[in-house]
Structures are given as structure tokens and as C-alpha cells.
């Protein structure tokens, strides 16, 4: 087997703060140019932390890529703090399967940082001429700009806030659109969100994919920390996923 696993330097270009704990970071990553597919992730080495942090890029264009970082703890805060260079192991994991070019509209439902891989996916889908219905939700209005991002990619985008402070009040899974017109669906976010989309799609017979954010140590299949239960038995999110057919996940 050739040595395919590499650590890539990401060099910070800019940081767009969405709120105190949410930011869109743009990096220069020449050695990764063209290598990433939507849904795949990078495992980031953050100085001072023993474990790397997995992140699914929100875009890649030529030598630059974006990470949408939601801080849950000090390591992600450190990342948002504007560290100039981080090392990224990857690309890791399996990407979202794409529908054939020109297929009917795809439904993308995201919550929180789940927007990251779906933004990347939306760009790819639009590039192959697939219409996209994007629904993004958050507790408050702080992520409205992510819905705008979907829109600027040419998606029909709707924003949901639980507190009603921006977009539609409610959740992106509320009153899902008529699924009969949809060719496929993708959902990334909290488990209940993904589960609801999965159930609706299963009822409507629409193929759907989700991405499981499991705690990961190695990211490459060596430690067995990321076990997930599927209809096919136990799988490991880092190598068998993080993207799984929604119908196969044991919720």
C-alpha cells in the first residue's frame, strides 16, 4: 500500500466571526487542492491538546478551503482565536454520494455546525446542475448568514430560528416540503434533526444521507473509538462514515 495518509498545513487567511462562539475560517491549503469531497473531514492538530479535532470543511476552491467552527470547548476556541497555522490530517472518511447530473432537487437540512459539509455539498450540487432546497436552523438569529450563504450558492434557502428572531420561527424539520418532488436528501446536525429527516424520507421513499459526529481519537480506523450501530452491524464512523445512508442508521 502506498503511503497516502498525510498531514497538511492550513494557513489562516481570514476569520469571519458569526457570534462569540461561531466563526467561518478561511485557510490556504495548497497541498489539499482538489482533494476534498463534501462530507469528508480533516483531523486538526491543535497545540496543547492531545486529541485532534475532526472538522468537515464548508468549502474548497482551488488552494483555499473554509472551516465552519462552532466552539464547544477550549480547543475549538483556540482555533477560532486565529491560530495562523494548523496541521490537518486528511482527507478522511467517506463523502456524500452525489445524484446524477441534472437530477431533481436535493433537500439539505442542517442544524448548527452541520451546515459545514452541506454548504460544501450545495456548491457541488449546483455545479452539476442539481437544484437545492436548503433549510438551516439554529436557536437564535446568529446563523442567518449561513442561510444567506446557501442562497448565494443558488439554493432556495430558508432559515429557522427557535426564538423567531430571524427567518421562520421553528426548526428546519418543521413542515418539511413535499418530498415527492425531491430526488435525494441530506441532513447534518443534532441526532433528532437527522432522525426526523431520515424518517420522513423513508416514508416517502427518498434516499437520504446523514453524517455522524462521533467522538474520534485517530480518525483513520485504528482505535475503534467511533463505533456506531447500523443495520449492517457495528461500524466505525471515521472510515465507514461519517456519511451513512440514513436508512441504515440504528437511531
Amino acid at each position, binding site marked *: 500500500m502506498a503511503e497516502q495518509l498525510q498531514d497538511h498545513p492550513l494557513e489562516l487567511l481570514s476569520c469571519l466571526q458569526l457570534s462569540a462562539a461561531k466563526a467561518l475560517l478561511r485557510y490556504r491549503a495548497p497541498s489539499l487542492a482538489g482533494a476534498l469531497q463534501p462530507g469528508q473531514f480533516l483531523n486538526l492538530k491543535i497545540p496543547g491538546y*492531545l486529541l485532534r479535532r475532526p472538522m468537515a470543511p464548508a468549502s474548497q476552491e482551488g488552494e483555499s478551503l473554509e472551516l465552519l467552527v462552532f466552539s464547544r470547548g477550549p480547543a475549538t476556541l483556540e482555533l477560532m482565536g486565529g491560530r495562523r497555522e494548523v496541521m490537518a490530517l486528511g482527507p478522511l472518511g467517506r463523502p456524500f454520494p452525489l445524484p446524477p447530473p441534472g437530477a431533481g432537487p436535493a433537500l439539505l437540512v442542517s442544524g448548527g455546525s452541520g451546515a459545514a459539509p452541506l454548504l460544501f455539498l450545495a456548491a457541488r450540487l449546483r455545479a452539476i446542475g442539481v437544484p437545492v432546497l436548503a433549510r438551516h436552523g439554529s436557536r437564535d438569529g446568529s446563523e442567518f448568514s449561513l442561510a444567506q450563504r446557501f442562497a448565494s450558492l443558488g439554493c432556495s434557502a430558508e432559515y429557522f430560528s427557535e426564538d423567531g428572531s430571524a427567518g421562520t420561527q421553528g426548526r428546519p424539520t418543521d413542515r418539511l416540503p413535499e418530498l415527492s418532488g425531491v430526488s435525494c436528501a441530506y441532513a447534518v446536525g443534532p441526532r433528532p434533526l437527522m432522525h426526523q429527516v431520515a424518517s420522513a424520507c423513508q416514508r416517502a421513499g427518498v434516499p437520504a444521507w446523514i453524517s455522524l459526529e462521533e467522538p474520534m481519537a485517530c480518525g483513520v480506523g*485504528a*482505535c475503534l473509538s467511533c463505533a456506531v450501530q447500523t443495520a449492517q452491524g457495528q461500524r466505525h464512523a471515521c472510515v465507514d462514515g461519517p456519511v451513512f445512508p440514513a436508512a441504515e442508521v440504528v437511531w
Partner: protein
Amino acid sequence: MTADPTGLEVELFGLRFANPVLTASGTFNFGREYAQAFPLRRLGGVITKGTSPRPRLGNAAPRIAETPAGLLNSIGLENKGVDAYLQGELPWLREQGTRVVVNVFGDTPAEFAEVAAKLAGHADLLELNLSCPNVHGGSLPFASDPAAAAEVVARCADVTDLPLLAKLAPNSELLRVAEACEQAGASGLSAINTLLGMRIDLQTRRPVLGTGMGGLSGPAILPLAVRCIYQLRQSSSLPILGMGGVRSWRDAAELAMAGADLVAVGTATFNDPWAAPRLIQELAEGLGQLGLSWTELVGAAHRD
């Protein structure tokens, strides 16, 4: 010395190790994943994931939690069972030009022996995992009971000619269990396994790990590993495979001075997949500067 310009070669158990640095059980699976990062022949050896007679699913998720300079894991010995590895993985691993140590686990002495009996020709050494805190509710039925540990070693010695390393826990019974294993026919000692720890999430107010508790590894436990290896060296003449928190050549050298003939790199690989080969390179340079070979360093802290 002339035949070994690196100063890293080790001859033990009738085997030649190109260098004394192996990868620790459970952090390197059966080698395929990190073979994508570097050729495994750069390593002194690979210690496989714990292998039981039949497949085990392991514990409930989540299975890892970070701690200050450490990692808790509660994998719970997930593995496909020895037969699967005899088919797919071990033949491949044996071709990679590095020493192969199979980590053996069973719920009973008979189960250990069942695995050990199948490994002749498939491994250079067996490491008997007597000390996993993630099974049997953390009670360590073997590593806290010299007689039970001895029985595991004796039953395995009955069914294989491969050298057997007894993998010990850093608990109060360390030295008694080591002595019992030696008398039962162990060829060497392996130390240390992880220590039972816990984290609790402030949001959910529940333990972070699915099983509540897990084993602590990583740099945090380095000084405990040094102490245990030092004590083992004082009380036993068996070769020692040392591990626990090693991430730099200086850490490896510290375990050597304490008494480790070989060392293993575990958790450090998660932070840096190249940790082990980098350490080997730096060890050669570092020892060169000190004008010492690895074997001269082994046990140095015990000499006057």
C-alpha cells in the same frame, strides 16, 4: 556495534529488533491504517489490538474522553476474533518487515490459551492482556490476583512455544503479579496498562463515557510508568516492554533507564500518526550525541 550503526538494535527472546520502539496495543489496530502513513518496517514492531477467541463488539459509545495530557478510553476490547485476524490481517502484517506481537485477551484462562494456541507461525511474541480496566467492570480479575494471572500464563505456556509477555496494571499488586507470572513461565513483562478514570459532562451531568469509567493513557501517566518499570526491574530479571505516555525520544529513554528493554508508543500516535517513526529517528540522533547505545541505556538508573 559495527553491525548496528544506529545503536538501536535489540536482541531479546532470541529475536532481533531493528529498534526498540513498538506501537502499543489498541492504538494501532493490526497496522493497516498507519501503513498508509509510513512503512511499518521502520518500527521495532507492531503490537496488535487485543484479540479474543470470538468476536467482541466492545462497549457502548462514547468510548473516549480527553483529560489533561491524557485520554480515557472504554473501547472494551472490540475485535473480530482471532480467526478473522489469522485470515486477513496477520499474514499481511508478517510481511511488513517488522516484529509482530499479538495482544491476547480472554475472559478466562482457557480463553487466553484458546487464542494463544492458534498463533504459532503468525506472531513473534504474545502479549497477554491481564490488565484491561474496560472489561469485568474494572475489577482486573487477573492483574489483581497473582494466582489467576499465573494460571493464564501457565495455560498459554502449555499450548505455545512463543515467548509470552504478561501485561500488567499499575496497581498495588504489580510486583506480586509479576513474580507469579515469572514463575508460571512468562518470558517478559509488559507495563503499564491504563488506569481507571472518569470524566463527567457539566451539561448532561452524566459520565462522558458510555460505560462511565475508562482507562487513562497518555503523557499524564508517564511518571507512573517510569516508577512501575523501575520497581519491576528491581524485583525481576525478566525483560520489560515499557509503555505509558511516551511521545518523545526522551520519554523513551526515561523508560529505558528505568529498566525497559523495549518501549511502545500508544496514545501519542493519535496526536501525530508519525510519532513512533519520528521518535526512532530522534532516538538515534539523541543517543548518538550522548555516545550511548540503547542497550547501554537500559536499566542505567539502577547502576552506580
